[in-house]
């Protein structure tokens, strides 16, 4: 794994009128890794992400993305990143191909819409409207829109929330492929099994603070070293394995 930082966040603070969402957060994301921001709802994950994505103003602190400062070169950053937002909609009344054309125009990249859909296995839905897609298809489409500008980094905010186990596993596969193609991935999730499975490194955020950054393995080993034991003996499989075993791995959409 390369250890060249592609994102550097230093002493990031975000204060709103009545509360402080992010309190002095610092971390680095390395080029080519899958980096997870973990933490309970309201911990400041999405706020942090949106500040890095240039969508929200910070109160103080400094951030560089791929060598560009968020303060002075936001537009350079926008050209180099792909963003999937939690619960974002798409322009009403357009089918997937037309949405891809729209984003190609917004990014100023000439792409073949159908090839973008091919990357996320949505060619058979090319003429469908976004609102008529299933949850997993919506997420895959959102990810396809992040790839239009051939970005250096993509940000995925809770990409697998609400998906069934098959769709979730499929999305993991897609995210791994994107990383394998050389793109750095930053994601947030509430699912620890997902973070363990997918992320090279994770940062735990709670109450606006980073309370730990490391590889999932190191975190687990550290906890075990303190004498921690699961209350229930770990079996060779869990219920999700049963689910996948019974219902198969193929897509259900």
């Amino acid at each position, binding site marked *: 794994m390369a250890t060249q930082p592609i994102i550097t966040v230093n002493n990031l603070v975000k204060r709103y009128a009545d509360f402080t969402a992010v309190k002095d957060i610092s971390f680095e994301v390395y080029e080519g890794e899958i980096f997870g921001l973990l933490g309970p709802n309201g911990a400041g994950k999405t706020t942090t992400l949106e500040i890095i994505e*240039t969508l929200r103003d910070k109160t103080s602190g400094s951030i560089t993305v791929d060598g560009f400062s968020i303060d002075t070169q936001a537009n350079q950053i*926008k050209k180099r990143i792909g963003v999937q937002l939690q619960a974002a909609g*798409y*322009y*009403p009344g357009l089918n997937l191909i037309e949405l891809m054309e729209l984003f190609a125009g917004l990014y100023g990249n000439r792409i073949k819409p159908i090839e973008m859909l091919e990357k996320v296995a949505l060619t058979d839905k090319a003429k469908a409207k976004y609102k008529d897609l299933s949850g997993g298809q919506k997420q895959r489409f959102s990810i396809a829109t992040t790839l239009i500008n051939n970005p250096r980094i993509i940000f995925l905010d809770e990409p697998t929330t609400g998906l069934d186990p098959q769709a979730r596993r499929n999305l993991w596969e897609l995210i791994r492929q994107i990383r394998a193609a050389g793109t750095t991935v930053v994601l947030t999730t509430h699912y620890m099994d997902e973070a363990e499975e997918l992320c090279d490194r994770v940062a735990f955020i709670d109450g606006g603070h980073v309370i730990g950054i490391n590889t999932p393995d190191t975190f687990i080993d550290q906890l075990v070293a303190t004498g921690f034991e699961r209350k229930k003996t770990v079996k060779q499989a869990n219920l999700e394995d049963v689910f996948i075993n019974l219902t198969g791995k193929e897509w259900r959409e």
Partner: protein
Amino acid sequence: MNTSSYSNIRATLAITKASLRSIFRNPSGLVFSLLFPLIFIVVFANIGSGGVTVDVGVAKGCDTLNPIYKALQNAKVVNLIRNQNADQMEKNLSKGSIDAILNVKKNGGNWTVYPPLSALPKARYNVQVKYTAASADKGGILKSLLNSIFFKIGEKTGAFSSIATIKETTIKGREYKYIDFILPGQLGFSLLNIGVFGTAFVFLSLRQTLVIRRFFATPVKRYSIVAGEMLARVTFAMLGSIIIIAVGHYAFGFTLVHGAVTVLSMLFLAFVGLVIFMGFGFIISGIAKNETTVPPLSNIITLPQFLLSGTFFSTSAFPKWLQPISNALPLTHLNNAMRKVAFEGVAITEVGHELLILLAWGIVIYAVAIKTFKWE
């Protein structure tokens, strides 16, 4: 990564294209901006052409050999009454059972040798028309008709014309049909709907569904988003206006005095009106809390104008106390300008008064819109 230079124009046009696709797939938008105006035109054009006549009393001693009088004789909409004496006429006029009294006098017609052109009186005829408040709307029709007759005669009589040629070029009777009144009003109604409802809904929904937020994650500029959406609405409204004018002209004989030039002048006015109405839409999108508050807020803007701006009836038919209100509304001035351009055939430069009022509205509305508009 994109190394070639970023094109704001391309981004703007991408939004325009997306927006147009969306507009054409939104049935309720199409109904309000195109179908309703066309239905009103069909309904009222049919009612109007059979129903409206303007009863004009002809004063004793009125010159009846002049082209103006002949034109009125040929106008189907005008019924000339000659069998009443002056007293009866005055009485009937005050009751509104006749709509106007006409008296045409010849100026300087007693030359035995034609004088040099410069010596000819500027106005050959002295036309006196007495209107009545009892029948203001029909008076308005007569007024427009007379204006168009004067215009036509003025246009046909070049520098070397004599009175004889005036007689020859007596207009065939450019009939003032109700379509000539109703179509500009419906055009204004269509523009009002496209501008107000369309703009208010699109920016509110883009904001609420976070489409705008996703746009902001791309290098697109804010002004590109606004310009793209406006351009889409302008394109749609121009297409709609052309359709409405074409249906009116070919199916119902809507009068276009100078043909294509008149159409272009009307489209220019339509553009000016639409830009102002879009300003209302921007304001509503900013103050509306959610999609359900858009229709009531939009109706507050559109309904009074729909009813009070002379869309269906001439504003001169309204009671006195209501007239200042209708004269304050932008649609009133758009409608007036449209009618002058379309039927009376005046040039766009001659509706400067209306354009000035519209410009004032535009400045006020956009000043408010800039204050109230919300991106997120």
